[in-house]
């Protein structure tokens, strides 16, 4: 096993041993469940959001609708909870000096941490998708999905579209996680990093709805949460998907690279 893989494995093990990990994961799984229960118990629906009006047609629609609601602050908060803590917790516990005086290079330790925080983001989104799909299918069945173009797609095809949509939806979240890792590395303070990351994510959302921001809107991180709409059109609209790929790559790479430089050079002294 490579050095980075060993570090990654332990970063995951550490996440699994901490309550905050389950807090975020639990919330991601609870939201679609509550959503379905509430919709089963009442007659109204989220008709204004993409696929909202078809939510009772098929369980496949549930994860898509929850994606919309969770993108505002739900997923950014869950992401920030872990990414903002991933380096700062080591400062808090003074354990950075413990692991940096073994045989692993700083770059390897950093890579393991970054990969673990990104993995967590992927896991919470997939967990939400699965719970939403299962709960929705139990409530309304596993039927063909109505696309954003108004055409029906078969249930298996809809499942593929869901997987692709979750995949592209993770990217802006990873961008938020990358910013969280940067704050976590620079501030060495978990609370400041979590709050700062969430504020940054909300600011991105805010910029997207303010008048006069239209020219930059396609390049804001918040906009990329809608890239999955491209998959739900017939034929597929690849433009928002491709834009999300490169825009998110920048939002991920720049903070990670900055955090990497700080992590390599930082003094590990008493906090």
């Amino acid at each position, binding site marked *: 096993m490579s050095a980075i893989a*060993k*570090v990654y*494995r*332990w970063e995951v*093990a*550490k996440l699994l*041993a*901490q309550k905050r990990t389950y807090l975020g994961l639990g919330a991601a799984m609870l939201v679609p469940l509550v959503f379905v229960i509430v919709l089963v118990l009442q007659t109204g629906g989220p008709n204004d959001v993409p696929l909202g009006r078809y939510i009772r047609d098929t369980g496949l629609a549930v994860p898509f609708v929850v994606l919309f609601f969770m993108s505002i602050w739900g997923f950014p908060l869950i992401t920030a909870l872990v990414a903002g803590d991933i380096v700062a917790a080591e400062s808090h*516990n*003074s*354990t950075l*000096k*413990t*692991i*940096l*005086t*073994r*045989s*692993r*290079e*700083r770059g390897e330790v950093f890579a393991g941490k970054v990969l673990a925080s990104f993995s967590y983001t992927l896991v919470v989104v997939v967990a939400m998708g699965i719970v939403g799909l299962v709960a929705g299918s139990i409530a309304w069945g596993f039927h063909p999905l109505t696309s954003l173009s108004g055409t029906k797609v078969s249930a298996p095809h809809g499942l593929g579209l869901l997987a692709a949509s979750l995949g592209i939806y993770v990217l802006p979240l990873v961008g938020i996680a990358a910013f969280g890792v940067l704050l976590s590395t620079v501030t060495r303070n978990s609370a400041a990093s979590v709050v700062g990351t969430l504020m940054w994510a909300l600011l991105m959302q805010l910029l997207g709805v303010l008048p006069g921001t239209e020219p930059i809107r396609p390049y804001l991180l918040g906009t990329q949460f809608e890239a999955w709409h491209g998959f739900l059109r017939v034929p597929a609209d690849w433009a928002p998907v491709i834009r999300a790929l490169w825009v998110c790559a920048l939002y991920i790479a720049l903070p990670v690279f900055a955090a990497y430089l700080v992590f390599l*050079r930082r*003094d*590990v*002294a*008493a906090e």
Partner: protein
Amino acid sequence: MSEAPPVATRGLVKRYGELLAVDHVDLTVERADVFGYLGPNGAGKTTSLRMMLGLIRPTEGSVQLFGRDPLRDGARALAGVAGFVEGPAFYPYLSGRRNLRLLADYDDGDSRSRIEEVLELVELRDRAKDRVGGYSHGMRQRLGIAAALLRRPRLLLLDEPTTGLDPAGMRDMRDLVRRLAGDGITVLLSSHLLGEVEELCNRVAIIQKGRVVYQGALRELLAGAASGYRLRSPEPGRARAVCLAQAGVEHVTSVDGEVRFQADEESVGVLSIALGQARIAVTALVPETASLEELFLDLTEGKVAAA
């Protein structure tokens, strides 16, 4: 490379703004040394150790561990090196054993196969499955030693390893350090406890306000200090007169019916013959060696010229 000393720092400086925490420290720790790094709190011991372990970057100067610089060579410079600064730190939500497994995976070599052995050595096997968050300070210190020993170190850097321990814990920790040194491990031990250093170390460096004010063999430090003798006799007046007349016997004074003077061993031998020839009875002739504590206070309070 194999001949390089375990620790060699040259012109090591760490500055925090206006504060000069470490001021041009040159330290050399030789193989099999149990090297005491002594200084009052805040003298710069821990900052020096952090630089040695590559945790903080020196403002100036260099560190070499077995000929490798932690800044230049990264983790490779720490091959064969283990220890802790400012007390060992672990993940409180993991058990003692899982903490060691984690650290073993952060090591090259066979650390993982040694976990049970080192837990046994520090007598923590019974509590190894408990979370470190519930450990006492002493248990954490012992786990810190266990974590260091996983790496089969040739050099152990221990920062105040007995701080916060009860007397029995301190004794056990010192016994452990003595045993490790007996196995040929070079130990650099920072401490402000003089008795501990006097008991364990063969060489010392004394640091005050970031500067090394003495470095060398502990024995030489103690022997080289101005040593005196106390002479007790039924005839102190006559004895004093013989002392005053004797070549090589200096600073003769009378205190509480005793004669006190300074002399080297050879002169004291000649003096004893002279006293016998003068038929002056001697009931006691006792060397008075300065304690490490006195020397330490003298050095750190600047009363003795820097070595």
